[in-house]
């Protein structure tokens, strides 16, 4: 057990912190500020008549305000007996100076009413680490808070934060994208297509027997079985039929995120390709083909919006 784990065990051992009473009882002025700011127009919070006729039979506070009543306020300080504050200090001292909240699980046993006065206690539930995260190495700290009115438990929250040592910024300020691109495997079925892109043509396979257009290419017509494919040169115009925005994992030669669009060409077949230069991608967006020369061997087709 290292120093951080020892301290965590010591703090957890202390159990629940003493109950801390909210500054004010549940009250209508604060409820009004909250519903105005959030934009919640549910009348059970502010309209006594409507509230009286509701399932609550009177005014209640929004359940999501449970924690609001016991916030420290502008000049409030966590007490020395607060387990979350104590654990944050331990991790600060160990160099894990940044914090980000990751989970908040709140349970509301019942709705609170104006004039009820809540008190809160918190205990340290779990400290796990060190973990490598996207933000840097850090520890997950989980606390449980319980809100009481008198001795009745009215709400609970499990809250988790990641306390981390920020990763060195300059090194990863810009994702490195100068890796070589992935090249397509070109074979006898597909070489006409890549010859086409080199020549600035978007070619669609056409059956030498029945004339059916098909994409992606294959050796045999699924309609008539003929094995003598020809091709047609597409106008290169179509509409986005569907698309994905790729964030993860990284792809060699690409800067994420990028958009991959399935485009329905005016000739009727659908073709995949990267879509660039679109402020907003949507199904039905009119696009046209654009050719980008990668090297003497390879020219990639992609899509861009057209007027």
């Amino acid at each position, binding site marked *: 057990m290292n120093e951080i784990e020892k301290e965590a065990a010591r703090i957890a051992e202390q159990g629940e912190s003493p109950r801390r009473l909210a500054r004010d009882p549940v009250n209508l002025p604060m409820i009004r500020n909250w519903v105005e700011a959030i934009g919640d127009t549910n009348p059970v919070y502010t309209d006594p008549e409507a509230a009286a006729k509701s399932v609550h039979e009177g005014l209640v506070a929004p*359940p999501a305000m449970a924690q609001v009543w016991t916030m420290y306020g502008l000049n409030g300080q966590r007490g020395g007996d607060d387990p979350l504050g104590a654990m944050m200090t331990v991790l600060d001292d160990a160099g894990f100076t940044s914090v980000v909240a990751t989970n908040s699980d709140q349970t509301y046993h019942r709705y609170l009413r104006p004039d009820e006065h809540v008190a809160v206690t918190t205990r340290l539930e779990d400290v796990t680490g060190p973990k490598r995260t996207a933000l840097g190495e850090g520890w997950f700290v989980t606390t449980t808070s319980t809100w009481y009115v008198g001795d009745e438990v009215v709400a609970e929250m499990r809250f988790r934060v990641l306390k981390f040592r920020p990763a060195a910024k300059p090194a990863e300020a810009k994702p490195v994208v100068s890796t070589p691109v992935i090249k397509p495997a070109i074979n006898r079925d597909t070489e006409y297509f890549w010859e086409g892109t080199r020549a600035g043509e978007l070619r669609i396979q056409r059956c030498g027997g029945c004339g059916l257009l098909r994409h992606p290419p294959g050796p045999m017509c699924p309609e008539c079985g003929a094995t003598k494919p020809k091709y047609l040169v597409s106008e290169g115009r179509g509409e986005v039929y569907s698309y994905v925005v790729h964030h993860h994992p990284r792809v060699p030669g690409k800067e994420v995120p990028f958009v991959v669009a399935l485009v329905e060409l005016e000739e009727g077949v659908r073709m995949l390709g990267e879509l660039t230069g679109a402020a907003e991608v949507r199904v039905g967006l009119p696009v046209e083909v654009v050719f980008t020369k990668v090297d003497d061997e390879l020219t990639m087709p992609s899509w861009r919006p057209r007027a």
Partner: protein
Amino acid sequence: MIQVGDSLPEWHVEATPTFVISTALATRDFQDVHHDRDLAVSRGSKDIFVNILTTTGLVQRYVTDWAGHDALVREVNIRLGAPCYAYDTLKFFGQVVSREEAGLVIEVVGRVPQGDHVVGTVKIEVAA
């Protein structure tokens, strides 16, 4: 009658600076990153951003606006992701994923341009 699989209507919240600040103060969260852009930027953020208690409140509102004024919210369980900065549009999506003895479980996602701001579930009870 609400059925498992029902979708909630998509809902967009424009996170104006006024929205970010008024909600932070209404939830009594006075951390500077929620109201002072200069300090937020100096701490490495793009701008001021929405605080957690507001996200919780928005998730609650999204579900109760849809389920009706008499729906009782029992749990709001959320995982926090990308920050919702001032001037972002926060887009909410939701779906009823299961029915439990006492009520319904609704899955909610709130997205910003940077990715998922919040993913979670809300448990509610509604009159039969």
